Protein backbone atom coordinates (compact mmCIF):
# COMPACT_ATOMS: atom_id res chain seq x y z
CA UNK A 1 0.00 0.00 0.00
CA UNK A 2 1.16 3.53 -0.89
CA UNK A 3 0.19 6.99 0.43
CA UNK A 4 -3.61 7.37 0.21
CA UNK A 5 -3.94 9.46 -2.98
CA UNK A 6 -1.35 7.35 -4.82
CA UNK A 7 -3.04 4.12 -3.86
CA UNK A 8 -6.42 5.54 -4.88
CA UNK A 9 -5.18 6.25 -8.38
CA UNK A 10 -3.55 2.81 -8.62
CA UNK A 11 -6.85 1.21 -7.60
CA UNK A 12 -8.78 3.22 -10.21
CA UNK A 13 -6.31 2.44 -12.98
CA UNK A 14 -6.23 -1.26 -12.21
CA UNK A 15 -9.99 -1.40 -12.76
CA UNK A 16 -9.44 -0.51 -16.43
CA UNK A 17 -9.54 -3.39 -18.92
CA UNK A 18 -6.16 -4.96 -19.67
CA UNK A 19 -4.38 -3.18 -16.80
CA UNK A 20 -3.04 -5.35 -14.01
CA UNK A 21 -1.87 -4.08 -10.64
CA UNK A 22 1.74 -3.84 -11.81
CA UNK A 23 0.90 -1.71 -14.86
CA UNK A 24 -1.41 0.43 -12.72
CA UNK A 25 1.48 1.08 -10.34
CA UNK A 26 3.79 1.97 -13.21
CA UNK A 27 1.23 4.37 -14.71
CA UNK A 28 0.48 6.02 -11.38
CA UNK A 29 4.14 6.73 -10.67
CA UNK A 30 4.58 7.96 -14.22
CA UNK A 31 1.75 10.45 -13.72
CA UNK A 32 3.40 11.50 -10.47
CA UNK A 33 6.73 12.06 -12.23
CA UNK A 34 5.58 14.14 -15.24
CA UNK A 35 5.06 17.93 -15.19
CA UNK A 36 1.92 18.93 -13.30
CA UNK A 37 0.21 20.63 -16.34
CA UNK A 38 0.63 17.42 -18.34
CA UNK A 39 -1.02 15.41 -15.60
CA UNK A 40 -3.88 17.88 -15.28
CA UNK A 41 -4.43 17.85 -19.04
CA UNK A 42 -5.03 14.10 -18.81
CA UNK A 43 -7.52 14.61 -15.99
CA UNK A 44 -9.27 17.37 -17.95
CA UNK A 45 -9.49 15.18 -21.07
CA UNK A 46 -11.28 12.51 -19.08
CA UNK A 47 -13.56 15.10 -17.53
CA UNK A 48 -14.41 16.79 -20.82
CA UNK A 49 -15.09 13.55 -22.57
CA UNK A 50 -17.57 12.46 -19.96
CA UNK A 51 -19.15 15.93 -19.77
CA UNK A 52 -19.40 16.71 -23.44
CA UNK A 53 -19.79 13.42 -25.20
CA UNK A 54 -23.14 11.73 -25.25
CA UNK A 55 -24.70 9.09 -27.43
CA UNK A 56 -26.44 10.15 -30.64
CA UNK A 57 -30.20 10.14 -30.07
CA UNK A 58 -30.78 8.53 -33.42
CA UNK A 59 -28.02 5.97 -34.04
CA UNK A 60 -26.25 5.77 -30.64
CA UNK A 61 -22.86 6.62 -32.08
CA UNK A 62 -20.77 8.89 -29.84
CA UNK A 63 -21.86 12.50 -30.35
CA UNK A 64 -21.01 15.97 -29.12
CA UNK A 65 -24.63 17.11 -29.28
CA UNK A 66 -28.02 15.50 -29.82
CA UNK A 67 -26.95 13.97 -33.12
CA UNK A 68 -23.59 12.54 -34.18
CA UNK A 69 -21.66 14.03 -37.08
CA UNK A 70 -22.82 11.26 -39.41
CA UNK A 71 -26.50 11.79 -38.64
CA UNK A 72 -26.05 15.55 -39.08
CA UNK A 73 -24.47 15.09 -42.52
CA UNK A 74 -27.19 15.87 -45.11
CA UNK A 75 -25.33 14.18 -47.95
CA UNK A 76 -25.58 10.69 -46.48
CA UNK A 77 -28.02 8.13 -47.82
CA UNK A 78 -30.85 7.66 -45.31
CA UNK A 79 -32.26 4.57 -46.98
CA UNK A 80 -29.40 2.29 -45.86
CA UNK A 81 -28.46 1.57 -42.23
CA UNK A 82 -25.39 -0.36 -41.20
CA UNK A 83 -26.00 -2.21 -37.90
CA UNK A 84 -22.93 -2.55 -35.67
CA UNK A 85 -22.23 -3.79 -32.16
CA UNK A 86 -20.23 -0.85 -30.81
CA UNK A 87 -19.43 2.77 -31.75
CA UNK A 88 -15.81 1.75 -32.45
CA UNK A 89 -17.04 -0.44 -35.31
CA UNK A 90 -18.35 2.65 -37.11
CA UNK A 91 -14.81 4.00 -37.34
CA UNK A 92 -13.67 0.81 -39.04
CA UNK A 93 -16.42 0.94 -41.66
CA UNK A 94 -15.90 4.68 -42.21
CA UNK A 95 -12.21 4.17 -42.85
CA UNK A 96 -13.05 2.18 -45.99
CA UNK A 97 -14.55 5.37 -47.54
CA UNK A 98 -16.93 3.02 -49.34
CA UNK A 99 -20.05 3.58 -47.33
CA UNK A 100 -22.35 6.61 -47.45
CA UNK A 101 -25.36 5.39 -45.46
CA UNK A 102 -26.25 5.69 -41.77
CA UNK A 103 -25.62 3.50 -38.74
CA UNK A 104 -27.32 1.89 -35.79
CA UNK A 105 -25.31 0.84 -32.73
CA UNK A 106 -26.83 -2.14 -30.93
CA UNK A 107 -24.65 -1.90 -27.85
CA UNK A 108 -23.35 -5.48 -28.02
CA UNK A 109 -24.39 -8.88 -29.31
CA UNK A 110 -26.73 -11.62 -28.15
CA UNK A 111 -25.00 -13.64 -25.43
CA UNK A 112 -27.17 -15.50 -22.90
CA UNK A 113 -23.96 -16.51 -21.06
CA UNK A 114 -23.53 -12.82 -20.21
CA UNK A 115 -27.23 -12.26 -19.69
CA UNK A 116 -27.66 -10.38 -22.96
CA UNK A 117 -30.92 -11.05 -24.79
CA UNK A 118 -32.75 -8.92 -27.38
CA UNK A 119 -34.12 -6.74 -24.56
CA UNK A 120 -30.63 -5.60 -23.64
CA UNK A 121 -29.81 -4.47 -27.21
CA UNK A 122 -31.25 -1.46 -29.06
CA UNK A 123 -33.74 -3.31 -31.21
CA UNK A 124 -36.78 -1.31 -30.06
CA UNK A 125 -34.94 1.86 -31.02
CA UNK A 126 -34.24 0.36 -34.45
CA UNK A 127 -37.91 -0.55 -34.88
CA UNK A 128 -38.86 3.00 -33.98
CA UNK A 129 -36.50 4.33 -36.64
CA UNK A 130 -38.09 2.10 -39.26
CA UNK A 131 -41.45 3.76 -38.50
CA UNK A 132 -40.19 7.28 -39.04
CA UNK A 133 -37.31 7.03 -41.51
CA UNK A 134 -37.42 5.73 -45.07
CA UNK A 135 -35.06 2.83 -44.39
CA UNK A 136 -34.98 0.19 -47.16
CA UNK A 137 -31.92 -1.87 -46.34
CA UNK A 138 -30.08 -3.03 -43.22
CA UNK A 139 -26.46 -4.05 -43.65
CA UNK A 140 -25.50 -6.20 -40.69
CA UNK A 141 -21.86 -5.71 -39.70
CA UNK A 142 -21.76 -7.54 -36.39
CA UNK A 143 -18.51 -9.32 -35.48
CA UNK A 144 -17.71 -12.67 -37.13
CA UNK A 145 -18.12 -14.50 -33.82
CA UNK A 146 -20.74 -17.01 -32.70
CA UNK A 147 -22.54 -14.18 -30.88
CA UNK A 148 -22.23 -11.73 -33.78
CA UNK A 149 -23.60 -14.33 -36.19
CA UNK A 150 -26.51 -15.12 -33.90
CA UNK A 151 -27.30 -11.41 -33.66
CA UNK A 152 -27.25 -11.16 -37.46
CA UNK A 153 -29.65 -14.08 -37.73
CA UNK A 154 -31.93 -12.45 -35.17
CA UNK A 155 -32.00 -9.26 -37.21
CA UNK A 156 -32.83 -11.19 -40.37
CA UNK A 157 -35.69 -13.01 -38.66
CA UNK A 158 -37.13 -9.91 -37.03
CA UNK A 159 -36.72 -7.35 -39.79
CA UNK A 160 -36.94 -9.18 -43.11
CA UNK A 161 -40.68 -9.85 -42.61
CA UNK A 162 -41.16 -6.06 -42.45
CA UNK A 163 -40.21 -5.89 -46.11
CA UNK A 164 -36.63 -4.68 -45.61
CA UNK A 165 -33.63 -5.92 -47.47
CA UNK A 166 -31.23 -7.42 -44.89
CA UNK A 167 -27.65 -8.20 -45.92
CA UNK A 168 -24.59 -9.42 -44.05
CA UNK A 169 -21.01 -8.40 -44.68
CA UNK A 170 -19.11 -11.23 -46.35
CA UNK A 171 -16.48 -12.80 -44.13
CA UNK A 172 -13.75 -15.31 -44.84
CA UNK A 173 -10.74 -14.32 -46.86
CA UNK A 174 -9.25 -11.03 -45.76
CA UNK A 175 -10.02 -8.28 -48.25
CA UNK A 176 -7.14 -7.74 -50.63
CA UNK A 177 -5.54 -10.92 -49.36
CA UNK A 178 -3.70 -13.14 -51.78
CA UNK A 179 -4.85 -16.75 -51.86
CA UNK A 180 -1.20 -17.85 -51.62
CA UNK A 181 -0.80 -16.16 -48.30
CA UNK A 182 -4.12 -17.03 -46.76
CA UNK A 183 -3.47 -19.44 -43.94
CA UNK A 184 -4.85 -22.93 -44.14
CA UNK A 185 -7.40 -22.13 -41.47
CA UNK A 186 -8.99 -19.15 -43.17
CA UNK A 187 -8.92 -20.86 -46.53
CA UNK A 188 -10.59 -23.94 -45.09
CA UNK A 189 -13.38 -21.82 -43.70
CA UNK A 190 -13.72 -19.75 -46.84
CA UNK A 191 -14.16 -22.94 -48.86
CA UNK A 192 -16.71 -24.35 -46.45
CA UNK A 193 -18.66 -21.09 -46.48
CA UNK A 194 -18.39 -20.42 -50.21
CA UNK A 195 -21.37 -18.80 -51.90
CA UNK A 196 -22.91 -18.92 -55.36
CA UNK A 197 -21.90 -16.17 -57.77
Amino acid at each position, binding site marked *: MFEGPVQRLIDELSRLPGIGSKSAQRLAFHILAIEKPDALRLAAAINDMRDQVTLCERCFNVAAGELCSICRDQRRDDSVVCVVERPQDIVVVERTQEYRGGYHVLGGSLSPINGV*GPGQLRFDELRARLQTEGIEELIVATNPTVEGD*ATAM*YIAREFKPLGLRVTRLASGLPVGGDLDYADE*LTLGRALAGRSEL
Partner: protein
Amino acid sequence: MRVDWLSLVDFRSYRALDWRPDPTVNLLIGPNGAGKTNVLESIGYLASLKSFRSASDSDVISRWSGSSVIRAGIGSIDRERLIEIEIPREGGRRTQVDKTKLKRTAELLGVLRVVAFLPEDLDLVKRGPAYRRDLLDDIAVQLWPSAYLDQSEYDRSVRQRNAFLKSGDRDEVTLAVWDSRLAQAGGRVMARRIRVIETLTPLLAESYSVIASEDAQVGITYSASWIEGAVPSVSAGEYADAIARALEARRRVDYERRMTTVGPHRDEPGFSIGERDARTQASQGEQRTLALAMKLAAHQAITQALSETPVLLLDDVFSELDPNRAEALAGALPENTQTLVTSARPEDLPISGKVWSVGEGDVG
Protein backbone atom coordinates in the same frame (compact mmCIF):
# COMPACT_ATOMS: atom_id res chain seq x y z
CA MET B 1 7.75 -33.92 -39.25
CA ARG B 2 10.01 -33.58 -36.30
CA VAL B 3 10.74 -31.45 -33.30
CA ASP B 4 14.36 -30.34 -33.81
CA TRP B 5 14.52 -28.54 -30.50
CA LEU B 6 12.19 -27.68 -27.67
CA SER B 7 12.46 -24.89 -25.15
CA LEU B 8 10.19 -24.51 -22.13
CA VAL B 9 9.96 -21.65 -19.67
CA ASP B 10 7.82 -22.09 -16.56
CA PHE B 11 5.90 -24.97 -18.08
CA ARG B 12 4.74 -27.39 -15.33
CA SER B 13 7.87 -28.58 -13.46
CA TYR B 14 10.30 -26.91 -15.91
CA ARG B 15 11.80 -23.50 -15.09
CA ALA B 16 13.93 -23.50 -18.21
CA LEU B 17 14.44 -26.49 -20.47
CA ASP B 18 16.38 -26.62 -23.73
CA TRP B 19 16.28 -29.99 -25.38
CA ARG B 20 17.25 -31.37 -28.79
CA PRO B 21 15.47 -34.67 -29.33
CA ASP B 22 16.76 -37.20 -31.80
CA PRO B 23 14.89 -37.32 -35.14
CA THR B 24 14.20 -41.03 -34.66
CA VAL B 25 13.24 -42.86 -31.45
CA ASN B 26 13.72 -41.14 -28.07
CA LEU B 27 13.35 -43.00 -24.79
CA LEU B 28 12.66 -40.65 -21.86
CA ILE B 29 13.51 -42.49 -18.69
CA GLY B 30 12.95 -41.36 -15.11
CA PRO B 31 11.08 -42.20 -11.91
CA ASN B 32 7.44 -41.24 -11.38
CA GLY B 33 7.02 -37.50 -11.04
CA ALA B 34 10.30 -36.78 -12.85
CA GLY B 35 8.60 -34.67 -15.53
CA LYS B 36 8.42 -37.08 -18.49
CA THR B 37 4.75 -36.57 -19.29
CA ASN B 38 5.22 -32.80 -18.94
CA VAL B 39 7.62 -32.82 -21.92
CA LEU B 40 5.20 -34.80 -24.08
CA GLU B 41 2.33 -32.57 -22.97
CA SER B 42 4.15 -29.44 -24.16
CA ILE B 43 4.69 -30.95 -27.62
CA GLY B 44 1.06 -32.09 -27.73
CA TYR B 45 0.01 -28.55 -26.80
CA LEU B 46 1.83 -27.08 -29.80
CA ALA B 47 -0.02 -29.45 -32.10
CA SER B 48 -3.53 -29.12 -30.68
CA LEU B 49 -3.52 -25.88 -28.65
CA LYS B 50 -4.74 -27.69 -25.59
CA SER B 51 -3.34 -29.92 -22.92
CA PHE B 52 -3.98 -33.62 -23.30
CA ARG B 53 -4.46 -33.97 -19.55
CA SER B 54 -6.04 -30.78 -18.20
CA ALA B 55 -9.16 -29.02 -19.33
CA SER B 56 -7.82 -25.73 -18.04
CA ASP B 57 -4.87 -24.03 -19.70
CA SER B 58 -3.65 -22.44 -16.49
CA ASP B 59 -2.79 -25.90 -15.08
CA VAL B 60 0.27 -26.06 -17.33
CA ILE B 61 1.70 -22.80 -15.99
CA SER B 62 4.31 -23.44 -13.30
CA ARG B 63 2.87 -22.78 -9.87
CA TRP B 64 5.42 -20.04 -9.24
CA SER B 65 4.83 -18.18 -12.50
CA GLY B 66 2.29 -15.96 -14.26
CA SER B 67 2.83 -17.44 -17.71
CA SER B 68 4.34 -20.34 -19.65
CA VAL B 69 6.29 -20.17 -22.88
CA ILE B 70 6.76 -23.08 -25.28
CA ARG B 71 9.15 -22.64 -28.21
CA ALA B 72 10.17 -25.22 -30.76
CA GLY B 73 11.98 -25.64 -34.05
CA ILE B 74 9.81 -27.79 -36.30
CA GLY B 75 11.38 -29.50 -39.29
CA SER B 76 9.36 -30.82 -42.18
CA ILE B 77 10.18 -32.02 -45.70
CA ASP B 78 10.41 -28.60 -47.25
CA ARG B 79 11.12 -26.20 -44.43
CA GLU B 80 12.08 -25.40 -40.90
CA ARG B 81 9.84 -23.26 -38.75
CA LEU B 82 10.14 -21.65 -35.37
CA ILE B 83 6.93 -21.64 -33.35
CA GLU B 84 6.30 -19.89 -30.06
CA ILE B 85 3.33 -19.74 -27.76
CA GLU B 86 2.89 -17.85 -24.55
CA ILE B 87 0.14 -18.96 -22.18
CA PRO B 88 -0.64 -16.30 -19.55
CA ARG B 89 -2.76 -16.92 -16.47
CA GLU B 90 -4.87 -13.91 -17.39
CA GLY B 91 -5.71 -12.77 -20.89
CA GLY B 92 -5.27 -14.41 -24.28
CA ARG B 93 -2.51 -16.62 -25.59
CA ARG B 94 0.08 -15.13 -27.92
CA THR B 95 1.49 -17.12 -30.81
CA GLN B 96 4.23 -16.56 -33.35
CA VAL B 97 5.50 -18.48 -36.35
CA ASP B 98 8.97 -17.50 -37.56
CA LYS B 99 8.83 -14.43 -35.31
CA THR B 100 5.65 -13.18 -36.97
CA LYS B 101 2.70 -12.63 -34.66
CA LEU B 102 -0.40 -14.58 -35.63
CA LYS B 103 -3.73 -12.77 -35.75
CA ARG B 104 -5.44 -15.83 -34.39
CA THR B 105 -3.87 -18.40 -32.10
CA ALA B 106 -5.50 -21.16 -34.11
CA GLU B 107 -3.35 -20.36 -37.14
CA LEU B 108 -0.58 -22.22 -35.35
CA LEU B 109 -2.41 -25.48 -35.96
CA GLY B 110 -0.97 -27.62 -38.72
CA VAL B 111 2.62 -26.47 -38.31
CA LEU B 112 3.23 -29.46 -36.07
CA ARG B 113 1.10 -32.62 -36.14
CA VAL B 114 1.14 -35.16 -33.40
CA VAL B 115 -0.47 -38.46 -32.47
CA ALA B 116 -0.38 -39.00 -28.73
CA PHE B 117 -1.00 -42.24 -26.91
CA LEU B 118 -1.58 -41.98 -23.16
CA PRO B 119 -2.15 -44.78 -20.63
CA GLU B 120 -5.85 -43.86 -20.31
CA ASP B 121 -6.26 -44.23 -24.08
CA LEU B 122 -5.91 -47.97 -23.60
CA ASP B 123 -9.41 -47.89 -22.14
CA LEU B 124 -10.91 -45.77 -24.89
CA VAL B 125 -13.23 -48.55 -26.05
CA LYS B 126 -14.94 -48.98 -22.71
CA ARG B 127 -14.91 -45.41 -21.42
CA GLY B 128 -17.84 -43.03 -21.82
CA PRO B 129 -18.84 -41.74 -25.28
CA ALA B 130 -17.42 -38.25 -24.58
CA TYR B 131 -13.95 -39.78 -24.69
CA ARG B 132 -14.53 -41.22 -28.17
CA ARG B 133 -16.13 -38.00 -29.44
CA ASP B 134 -12.98 -36.14 -28.36
CA LEU B 135 -10.85 -38.81 -30.03
CA LEU B 136 -12.57 -38.29 -33.40
CA ASP B 137 -12.51 -34.50 -33.00
CA ASP B 138 -8.81 -34.47 -32.08
CA ILE B 139 -7.90 -36.56 -35.11
CA ALA B 140 -10.00 -34.22 -37.28
CA VAL B 141 -7.93 -31.25 -36.10
CA GLN B 142 -4.68 -33.03 -36.94
CA LEU B 143 -6.03 -33.88 -40.40
CA TRP B 144 -7.79 -30.57 -41.12
CA PRO B 145 -6.76 -27.70 -38.81
CA SER B 146 -9.87 -25.64 -39.58
CA ALA B 147 -11.91 -28.31 -37.76
CA TYR B 148 -10.70 -26.57 -34.60
CA LEU B 149 -12.79 -23.50 -35.41
CA ASP B 150 -15.89 -25.60 -36.11
CA GLN B 151 -15.47 -27.40 -32.80
CA SER B 152 -14.95 -24.20 -30.79
CA GLU B 153 -17.96 -22.61 -32.49
CA TYR B 154 -20.08 -25.63 -31.77
CA ASP B 155 -19.07 -25.76 -28.09
CA ARG B 156 -19.76 -22.06 -27.76
CA SER B 157 -23.17 -22.37 -29.45
CA VAL B 158 -24.19 -25.22 -27.16
CA ARG B 159 -23.12 -23.20 -24.10
CA GLN B 160 -25.03 -20.15 -25.33
CA ARG B 161 -28.15 -22.15 -26.08
CA ASN B 162 -27.98 -23.84 -22.67
CA ALA B 163 -27.55 -20.46 -20.98
CA PHE B 164 -30.64 -19.25 -22.83
CA LEU B 165 -32.66 -22.30 -21.72
CA LYS B 166 -31.52 -21.76 -18.12
CA SER B 167 -32.38 -18.05 -18.22
CA GLY B 168 -36.09 -18.82 -18.14
CA ASP B 169 -36.62 -16.58 -21.19
CA ARG B 170 -39.13 -18.11 -23.60
CA ASP B 171 -38.57 -15.92 -26.65
CA GLU B 172 -39.08 -18.21 -29.64
CA VAL B 173 -37.14 -16.06 -32.09
CA THR B 174 -34.06 -16.03 -29.87
CA LEU B 175 -34.22 -19.79 -29.41
CA ALA B 176 -34.63 -20.28 -33.16
CA VAL B 177 -31.50 -18.19 -33.70
CA TRP B 178 -29.44 -20.32 -31.31
CA ASP B 179 -30.90 -23.48 -32.87
CA SER B 180 -29.77 -22.36 -36.25
CA ARG B 181 -26.31 -21.28 -35.09
CA LEU B 182 -25.82 -24.56 -33.24
CA ALA B 183 -27.07 -26.62 -36.18
CA GLN B 184 -24.68 -24.95 -38.63
CA ALA B 185 -21.59 -25.54 -36.53
CA GLY B 186 -22.85 -28.99 -35.51
CA GLY B 187 -23.29 -29.99 -39.14
CA ARG B 188 -19.65 -29.18 -39.81
CA VAL B 189 -18.43 -31.02 -36.71
CA MET B 190 -20.50 -34.03 -37.73
CA ALA B 191 -19.25 -34.05 -41.32
CA ARG B 192 -15.66 -34.08 -40.06
CA ARG B 193 -16.33 -36.97 -37.69
CA ILE B 194 -17.86 -39.05 -40.45
CA ARG B 195 -14.92 -38.27 -42.72
CA VAL B 196 -12.50 -39.30 -39.98
CA ILE B 197 -14.39 -42.59 -39.61
CA GLU B 198 -14.40 -43.21 -43.37
CA THR B 199 -10.69 -42.44 -43.62
CA LEU B 200 -9.67 -44.52 -40.64
CA THR B 201 -11.83 -47.61 -41.02
CA PRO B 202 -9.72 -49.48 -43.62
CA LEU B 203 -6.50 -48.48 -41.83
CA LEU B 204 -7.91 -49.61 -38.49
CA ALA B 205 -8.68 -53.10 -39.77
CA GLU B 206 -5.14 -53.35 -41.11
CA SER B 207 -3.43 -52.16 -37.91
CA TYR B 208 -5.64 -54.39 -35.82
CA SER B 209 -4.67 -57.52 -37.70
CA VAL B 210 -0.97 -56.60 -37.47
CA ILE B 211 -1.08 -56.21 -33.68
CA ALA B 212 -3.45 -59.13 -33.04
CA SER B 213 -1.72 -61.23 -35.73
CA GLU B 214 -5.13 -62.43 -36.87
CA ASP B 215 -7.69 -61.06 -39.27
CA ALA B 216 -10.79 -59.54 -37.76
CA GLN B 217 -13.69 -57.46 -39.02
CA VAL B 218 -13.23 -54.34 -36.93
CA GLY B 219 -15.20 -51.20 -37.53
CA ILE B 220 -16.06 -47.79 -36.10
CA THR B 221 -19.72 -47.25 -35.29
CA TYR B 222 -21.58 -44.00 -34.77
CA SER B 223 -24.99 -43.56 -33.31
CA ALA B 224 -26.80 -40.25 -33.20
CA SER B 225 -30.25 -39.86 -31.67
CA TRP B 226 -31.07 -37.15 -34.21
CA ILE B 227 -30.62 -39.54 -37.12
CA GLU B 228 -32.96 -42.44 -37.68
CA GLY B 229 -31.20 -45.67 -38.58
CA ALA B 230 -27.71 -45.80 -40.06
CA VAL B 231 -25.78 -42.53 -40.27
CA PRO B 232 -25.54 -41.49 -43.91
CA SER B 233 -22.47 -39.88 -45.43
CA VAL B 234 -23.81 -36.49 -46.52
CA SER B 235 -22.71 -32.85 -46.60
CA ALA B 236 -22.32 -30.62 -43.55
CA GLY B 237 -25.38 -28.68 -44.72
CA GLU B 238 -27.56 -31.77 -44.73
CA TYR B 239 -26.41 -32.75 -41.23
CA ALA B 240 -27.15 -29.18 -40.15
CA ASP B 241 -30.71 -29.46 -41.47
CA ALA B 242 -31.23 -32.72 -39.61
CA ILE B 243 -29.89 -31.20 -36.37
CA ALA B 244 -32.15 -28.17 -36.79
CA ARG B 245 -35.20 -30.43 -37.24
CA ALA B 246 -34.26 -32.47 -34.16
CA LEU B 247 -33.78 -29.34 -32.05
CA GLU B 248 -37.20 -28.12 -33.04
CA ALA B 249 -38.79 -31.45 -32.19
CA ARG B 250 -37.07 -31.49 -28.78
CA ARG B 251 -37.95 -27.93 -27.77
CA ARG B 252 -40.36 -28.86 -25.03
CA VAL B 253 -37.92 -31.35 -23.48
CA ASP B 254 -35.04 -28.90 -23.75
CA TYR B 255 -37.04 -26.15 -22.05
CA GLU B 256 -37.96 -28.54 -19.26
CA ARG B 257 -34.44 -29.87 -18.71
CA ARG B 258 -32.89 -26.46 -19.38
CA MET B 259 -30.24 -27.90 -21.66
CA THR B 260 -29.65 -29.09 -25.20
CA THR B 261 -30.50 -32.77 -25.19
CA VAL B 262 -29.80 -33.54 -28.84
CA GLY B 263 -26.89 -32.92 -31.20
CA PRO B 264 -23.35 -34.09 -31.96
CA HIS B 265 -22.29 -33.31 -28.37
CA ARG B 266 -24.48 -36.23 -27.24
CA ASP B 267 -23.62 -38.75 -29.97
CA GLU B 268 -22.09 -42.13 -29.28
CA PRO B 269 -19.16 -43.33 -31.37
CA GLY B 270 -18.08 -46.90 -30.75
CA PHE B 271 -16.28 -49.92 -32.17
CA SER B 272 -17.34 -53.28 -33.47
CA ILE B 273 -15.53 -56.58 -33.88
CA GLY B 274 -17.42 -58.70 -36.35
CA GLU B 275 -21.03 -58.44 -35.22
CA ARG B 276 -20.10 -57.69 -31.64
CA ASP B 277 -20.20 -54.32 -29.88
CA ALA B 278 -16.62 -53.96 -28.65
CA ARG B 279 -17.65 -52.01 -25.55
CA THR B 280 -19.83 -54.72 -24.07
CA GLN B 281 -18.79 -57.89 -25.86
CA ALA B 282 -15.05 -57.78 -26.42
CA SER B 283 -12.34 -59.03 -24.07
CA GLN B 284 -10.01 -56.55 -22.40
CA GLY B 285 -7.24 -57.79 -24.70
CA GLU B 286 -9.32 -57.09 -27.79
CA GLN B 287 -10.29 -53.67 -26.48
CA ARG B 288 -6.68 -52.71 -25.89
CA THR B 289 -5.62 -53.95 -29.29
CA LEU B 290 -8.40 -51.85 -30.80
CA ALA B 291 -7.20 -48.78 -28.91
CA LEU B 292 -3.62 -49.25 -30.11
CA ALA B 293 -4.78 -49.93 -33.66
CA MET B 294 -6.91 -46.78 -33.64
CA LYS B 295 -3.92 -44.57 -32.79
CA LEU B 296 -1.73 -46.24 -35.39
CA ALA B 297 -4.50 -45.80 -37.96
CA ALA B 298 -4.72 -42.11 -37.09
CA HIS B 299 -0.97 -41.80 -37.57
CA GLN B 300 -1.19 -43.49 -40.95
CA ALA B 301 -4.16 -41.41 -42.09
CA ILE B 302 -2.33 -38.18 -41.32
CA THR B 303 0.81 -39.47 -43.02
CA GLN B 304 -1.17 -40.29 -46.17
CA ALA B 305 -2.94 -36.96 -46.18
CA LEU B 306 0.26 -34.92 -45.75
CA SER B 307 2.91 -37.16 -47.29
CA GLU B 308 4.71 -36.55 -44.01
CA THR B 309 4.77 -38.42 -40.72
CA PRO B 310 3.34 -36.80 -37.58
CA VAL B 311 5.36 -37.03 -34.37
CA LEU B 312 4.33 -39.99 -32.23
CA LEU B 313 4.10 -39.65 -28.43
CA LEU B 314 3.82 -42.81 -26.33
CA ASP B 315 3.42 -41.98 -22.66
CA ASP B 316 3.98 -44.92 -20.28
CA VAL B 317 2.14 -47.19 -22.66
CA PHE B 318 4.47 -50.19 -22.81
CA SER B 319 4.45 -50.79 -19.06
CA GLU B 320 0.66 -51.10 -19.18
CA LEU B 321 0.71 -53.86 -21.79
CA ASP B 322 1.39 -57.56 -21.39
CA PRO B 323 4.74 -58.58 -22.97
CA ASN B 324 3.17 -60.09 -26.10
CA ARG B 325 1.10 -57.06 -26.92
CA ALA B 326 4.03 -54.75 -26.09
CA GLU B 327 6.18 -56.66 -28.59
CA ALA B 328 3.43 -56.53 -31.18
CA LEU B 329 3.03 -52.77 -30.74
CA ALA B 330 6.78 -52.22 -31.02
CA GLY B 331 6.76 -54.19 -34.26
CA ALA B 332 3.83 -52.20 -35.65
CA LEU B 333 5.23 -48.71 -34.95
CA PRO B 334 5.51 -46.58 -38.10
CA GLU B 335 8.90 -46.09 -39.72
CA ASN B 336 10.63 -42.80 -40.41
CA THR B 337 8.72 -41.28 -37.53
CA GLN B 338 10.08 -39.19 -34.71
CA THR B 339 8.86 -41.09 -31.67
CA LEU B 340 8.97 -40.07 -28.00
CA VAL B 341 8.50 -42.90 -25.52
CA THR B 342 8.42 -42.45 -21.74
CA SER B 343 8.95 -45.11 -19.12
CA ALA B 344 9.96 -45.45 -15.49
CA ARG B 345 11.43 -48.87 -16.23
CA PRO B 346 13.65 -48.99 -19.32
CA GLU B 347 13.94 -52.79 -19.02
CA ASP B 348 10.23 -52.99 -19.98
CA LEU B 349 10.76 -51.29 -23.32
CA PRO B 350 10.80 -53.64 -26.29
CA ILE B 351 12.30 -50.97 -28.55
CA SER B 352 15.64 -49.25 -28.74
CA GLY B 353 16.44 -45.60 -29.27
CA LYS B 354 18.33 -42.68 -27.85
CA VAL B 355 18.08 -42.80 -24.08
CA TRP B 356 17.43 -39.61 -22.11
CA SER B 357 17.42 -39.33 -18.38
CA VAL B 358 14.64 -37.11 -17.03
CA GLY B 359 14.70 -35.49 -13.60
CA GLU B 360 15.35 -32.35 -11.60
CA GLY B 361 13.87 -30.05 -14.20
CA ASP B 362 16.06 -31.31 -17.01
CA VAL B 363 16.29 -33.82 -19.83
CA GLY B 364 19.84 -34.95 -20.52
